[in-house]
């Protein structure tokens, strides 16, 4: 198994722990991951509102580079994952968009073929690597650590390529295989507000508070996320959303929990980048770590 890897901009900034833990987990599973050569920003939702056609061309450059490489493309950030997939759909469904994108690729002498399979790490871990291989790697089981699995919007909507749109369970199954206990979390695909916390603060905070409240109410000890923006929103504004300091959960990437169970040292999985330390919870649950 070999995958091209498209980190996206956030995994080089606020989401560094995601990249660190993701790569550590894939190394432990002996799955080869090679960063896509000279990748550019996918455009995310922001460029799409500024200029839709240009954003398809930006995504197509990455897709063309990856198709040339021949391996499936792994995109861990939800926004990147969606934009790359969406570009393929729109280029296919609207021939005139296809023409514009083809012409743009011609000007930089890249092949017009952008058909590479864009995959999310959840999909790869569950369907290619498999639960058995993951269970076999668990050396430090999570001892019933109560996890609220938070998927957010854009990996299951609108396309639902590998999981159920309304009740995704891929992360639940991966973390259960590591010994975690998944708590009832009815808001698992609700919106975190995206960049609203920066642009319309009161509304952004409301959405974040709702997600934290549900996790707290269902006695989660940590929240597991799959997206750098979801993770950032929940973690950065946890204090602000608490009226009585009730929210004090580590907000982690699901890959960090896998890394923990695989016995990868905390520092190699980006745990030092958390605002709320995981160590008190680990001590309470008697979870061994390196």
């Amino acid at each position: 198994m070999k995958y091209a890897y498209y980190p996206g901009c956030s995994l080089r900034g606020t989401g560094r722990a995601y990249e660190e833990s993701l790569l550590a987990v894939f190394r432990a599973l002996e799955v080869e991951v090679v960063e896509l050569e000279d990748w550019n920003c996918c455009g995310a939702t922001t460029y799409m509102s500024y200029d839709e056609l240009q954003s398809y061309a930006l995504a197509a450059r990455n897709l063309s580079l990856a198709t040339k490489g021949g391996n499936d493309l792994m995109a861990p950030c939800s926004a990147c994952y969606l934009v790359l997939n969406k570009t393929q759909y729109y280029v296919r469904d609207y021939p005139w968009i296809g023409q514009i994108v083809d012409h743009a690729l011609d000007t930089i002498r890249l092949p017009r073929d952008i058909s590479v399979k864009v995959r999310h790490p959840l999909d790869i871990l569950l369907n290619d690597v498999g639960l058995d291989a993951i269970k076999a790697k668990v050396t430090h089981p999570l001892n019933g650590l109560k996890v609220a699995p938070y998927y957010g919007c854009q990996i299951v909507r609108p396309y639902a390529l590998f999981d159920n749109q309304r009740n995704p369970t891929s992360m639940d199954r991966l973390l259960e295989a590591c010994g975690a206990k998944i708590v009832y979390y009815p808001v698992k695909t609700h919106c975190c507000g995206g960049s609203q916390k920066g642009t319309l603060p009161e509304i952004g905070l409301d959405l974040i508070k709702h997600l934290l409240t549900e996790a707290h109410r269902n006695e989660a000890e940590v929240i597991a996320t799959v997206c750098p923006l979801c993770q950032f929103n929940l973690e950065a504004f946890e204090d602000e959303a608490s009226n009585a300091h009730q929210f004090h959960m580590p907000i982690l990437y699901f890959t960090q929990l896998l890394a923990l169970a695989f016995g990868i040292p905390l520092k190699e999985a980006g745990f030092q980048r958390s605002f709320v330390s995981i160590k008190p919870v680990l001590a309470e649950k008697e979870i061994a770590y390196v």
Partner: protein
Amino acid sequence: MELKRVVKFEAERDPAFAQWISHTVGGERIRHCLQCGLCSGSCPLSLYMDYTPRRLMHLSREGFKEEVLSSYTIWLCTCCYACMVECPKQINITHLMYALKTRAIQEHFYPKRFAIPELARDFSRMIRGSGRITESRLVLRVFLKTAIWRLVGFSSLGWKLFRTGRMRFAREKVQRQNEIVTILNAVEDTRKEMAR
């Protein structure tokens, strides 16, 4: 007290706008909208909107251009795609929101210092310039332009990010920046040609 008529006369609507929306990518089926309201019901932000997505769909297809482009609805949309998944007529509502935002930015239908369109503009400039986004630089730039006073409130968050190595100011850049500029220009050229 100022008395104002809030209902428009037929002749005051903009049929060209209605035409445009039904020919926009994703809007092909807007005439099939049943006004069932599943979009508004599934929208996590409809509680805060001046027009809910259902109403906005109707206003758009009837040509109420000003109401639609100056509504807060289009800026509140976070593109979570809940409406699109629920729509029984497969109208690509999320995509129409993108199209409406683009149009509102082009025609300056938003309040001064409004952060969302400013973010979109700066985001696109940063990509043209470096091919990648350096988050800290982008956020700082948008705040300086729109809400400089809020930076004070963010100082403790900034410190936490800095301390954990998550606030980086070194510019992220692609190696072949010329390729980015070339494809963006190529799209512009084709668009102009098609318009002709």
